[in-house]
């Protein structure tokens, strides 16, 4: 694997997902909106990346395109060795099922299923037997052992999001995406969930990409990418909450003066 210009030199691990010259344009002519403007970015294996940026910067769109949830106008996206641009819906679905884990802001658990059933849902869909040992590791890590038989309505928000984290991890995906995973949680539960995400990277060697607007959440990541107006404008390694906040303020003031 070669490193891209934006990548830092001291890490030369494999790339889990890569966007090259990725553009997404809505509408035509006068009403044309450029959501992503020739974005090139790598997400390396075993790294926790946060994507930040003001509303409308395209951070969610970038994640959706890389995760195979949304189509893009030009450029290319690869998950591992697979180019997403040429995939049909069925193949994309299969890719999401087998190689990608998702954590949503609104938990999105099935209310009819127990916690355990929700966790194994992606494997059930694929018709695969879950890896027992791995599953136990994951469940223990998120601390749900005692609540596996509960239904989502019987769990607190934090517990529900832990189920969602476990679900994303359960199938040992190549890459996990989180869309504001702490957006609906109080700060303590949020911190717990972020801790699990970081642990899954540190201890289990997972790859995590998270969209957030919370500098504290971003400080859990190894790397922060800043987006504005559909372009990557900056990158920060080993971020701290204060550092991220300062950087954000900087954009804000720039945005205001320009």
């Amino acid at each position, binding site marked *: 694997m070669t490193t891209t210009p934006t990548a830092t030199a001291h890490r030369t691990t494999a790339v889990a997902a890569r966007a090259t010259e990725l553009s997404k344009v809505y509408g035509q002519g006068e009403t044309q909106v450029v959501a992503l403007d020739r974005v090139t970015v790598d997400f390396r294996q075993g790294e926790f990346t946060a994507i930040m940026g003001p509303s409308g910067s395209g951070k969610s769109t970038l994640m959706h395109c890389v995760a195979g949830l*949304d189509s893009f106008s030009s450029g290319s996206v690869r998950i591992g060795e697979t180019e997403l641009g040429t995939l049909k819906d069925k193949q994309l679905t299969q890719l999401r099922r087998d190689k990608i884990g998702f954590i949503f802001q609104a938990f999105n658990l099935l209310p*009819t299923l127990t916690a355990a059933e929700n966790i194994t849902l992606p494997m059930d869909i694929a018709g695969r037997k879950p890896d027992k040992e791995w599953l136990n590791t994951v469940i223990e890590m998120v601390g749900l052992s005692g609540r596996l038989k509960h239904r989502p309505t019987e769990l607190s928000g934090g517990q529900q999001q832990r189920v969602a984290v476990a679900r994303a991890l359960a199938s040992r995906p190549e890459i996990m995406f989180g*869309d504001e995973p702490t957006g609906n949680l109080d700060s303590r539960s949020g911190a717990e969930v972020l801790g699990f995400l970081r642990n899954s990277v540190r201890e289990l060697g997972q790859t995590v990409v998270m969209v957030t607007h919370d500098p504290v959440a971003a400080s859990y990541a190894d790397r922060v990418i800043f987006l504005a107006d559909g372009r990557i404008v900056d990158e920060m390694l080993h971020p701290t909450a204060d550092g991220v906040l300062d950087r954000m303020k900087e954009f804000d003031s720039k945005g205001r003066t320009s």
Partner: protein
Amino acid sequence: MFRTALRNVLAHKARLLMTVLAVMLGVAFVSGTLVFSDTVGNAFKNKSAKSFDHVSVAIQPDHSRPSDSSGSAQDAKKKPVLTDALLKKVQDLPGAASVIGDVSGFTALADKNGKLVGQDWGTTGANHFPGPDGKDVRYDFTEGSAPKRAGEIALDSRTAERTGYKVGESARLSTDGRVTQQTISGIFDTSNGSVVAGGSLVLFDNATAAKALGKTEYDEIDVKAAAGTSQQALRSAVEKILPKDTVAVTGDSLAADQDAMITQQTSTMSQVLLYFAGISLFVGIFIIANTFTMLVAQRTKELALLRAIGASRRQVTRSVLIEALLVGLIAAVAGFVLGIGIAIGLRSAINGLGGSLPDGPLVIAPMTGFVALIIGVVVTMLAAWLPGRRAAKIPPVAAMNSVHASPTVRGLVVRNTIGSVVAALGAGSLFMGVATGGSDGMPFMALGAALILIGAIVLTPLLSRPFIAAVTPLLKPFGVTGKLARQNSLRNPRRTASTASALMIGLTLITSMTVVALSMQNAINKMATASLKADYTVSMANYQPLSPAVHKKLAALPEVAASSPMRTAYGEIGGVFSSVNGVDGKRVGDLLSLDFTSGSLDGLTGNTTVVDTTTAEKEGLKRGDTASVKFDDGKSVRLKIIGIYEPNEMINGLFTPTAVVDPHLEKITDQQVLVKMKGGTSDRAEASIVKALGDNPAIKIQDKQAISDEVGGAINLMLNMLYGLLGMAVLIAVLGVVNTLAMSVFERKHEIGMLRAIGLDRSKVKQMVRLESVVISLFGAVLGVGLGIFLGWAAGSGIADSVKTYSMQIPAGRIAVFMVAAALVGVLAAMWPARSAARLNPLAAIKAE
């Protein structure tokens, strides 16, 4: 409030679509029925009014006079009064313009294949009665000319068209058993009542008609008044010369009677149809209630906001009801228009299928439109009333809750208790009806059936759990989608239940009717054929008596092993009125097998008889006793009883040798002839009988199979009509399944999006919705079939009291068909909701509320 309601209707167009369709179909059924029966009734009346054009006064035998009942035999002996002499006298009356004598009777016309034309009830023969100009005003010849001599006939144009007969060709027909070859002299149009009703009419010349139809006088003499003479005046004139036992009736009053009869018939027909329309509308209520319940649940916040800013409970309820009113109004108008279309379509469909409804303008009574509107609006508002009440109960504070209000999970305890009580009452009433038996038990049974059905509807949510648990193994092979479908169908038990109930109602009725009808068919079959040892029965196609010559011919046939006539006289044993069947005593043992409690048919010669148990018990008769039988003619005979047997509806009364019966008959005729062939039934055997009887279209030769088929055909026809009528209720129930699934998909948008995001592909999403649909449909089908069999059993036990051969038949084949059809319905109903579910964008899941 009105504006809010209007906005809501417009905003939820798609979600209200199924509701509108359901109400529309129900209203269309009602208005279609009304328009159709008005139109057809009107057309028949116009047509029949025309058929009285030539009648100012009709002279008829006085039927109101009490006379002995034994029919034609007596008439034959009476001195003829409606004769040519009377006709002449009437003709000479001042004020009489023209006079027509009319005779008609059963005439079997053979088609080109030798088969009887049309049904046996509608094949009539009549006289052509030419006036001074040589024309008969009743018949309008389009081809050829009227029959003028024996050997010539004319056919009505529809019969000619149907059979392909042309002027100059010859046709065979029979009126009294002999077959004659006739030449077709002409083809005519007529407004004759039986032709209008779809029968066929053969015309003879006047003299031949009387002879062929066995008449010694006219059936009726019709007088047309001269210009300037009123019908009343003419009637007074006619009455002066009226012979005994006849009456003169004005044409107007005949037409009025006919009108009244047509009105009665069409209103009976429309009542039956409206009954089924009512069922369809009732089924529709479930869909409307479901839809409004969902709309209210989805608008909880909005309605709470209205309450918070000061709307009263009543205003909230009213806004929901106004919405229902608008929906009902739109659906009713659409339904009314569709109903008119149905009425037009129905008429051409019936004519296309060989029916013959007269032409006439479409009659849309203002009342019909009014009824359609009222029904559409009332039904919709009634169904929306409960959801409206529930909407009013939403507390204003619900507006402040940030969380999306989940559908309230109210306990089913009250509902289940009510359901159980109602069902138990129903079962109690039903069993009481069964125990009481006969017609006394019927009201209890009907009440019980209705209560059980209502109880079952109330209890469906409770029943849904065990049912869905029971089908779980069937869903296993579908893996995770099966599991999700199962759980989804349990998620809103009320909605699942009312969706399934809608389907249940139709299937309950269909199943119970199928069970009763097929059991009845089986019972009649047994009755008709079990006691029959003969290979063939020979009778007249119109069930008139057969000439004894038929039996003589058959007895002489070398292929025939045994044969016996059945000729019936009536008599009294003690005080019991009974039929006395004359048979060939030596042969009858080979032709009939009676269910003897003592004795047998052996030795039925001389003055002997066998008696049925009913008569024997009433009169305390035993085998070996001698009973005195007093015949209709007043003479008595003493008969020795050699056997006692169990009767049924078809075989009962006394059986004695023909020699005992013959002296007491006015005219010796046979009801039927029983024939046993040397080689049993075969095409050749049948052909030999047909040939021996001169290839006569008027004579019906049936083996057991043909008798069964005749019974089965009639019952199947009736069942198919019922299926057709209940089909609308089922169709509406299917719309309900579509509706429920569409709602489910709409409500679970986020979940489905999430499932898509984490890797459920489109076909699996479709499968999930489809399976849920099949589960709901099968649930309704299982309930309906189960309840239908139970009610069929109950109704059957009432029948079994009076019909001894009745035993319940469970038509496993048909029930399997119903189940498969229900599963297919599920798949079909899921098509649109499944498609829209599969098209959902996974991104919808990620977007927070």
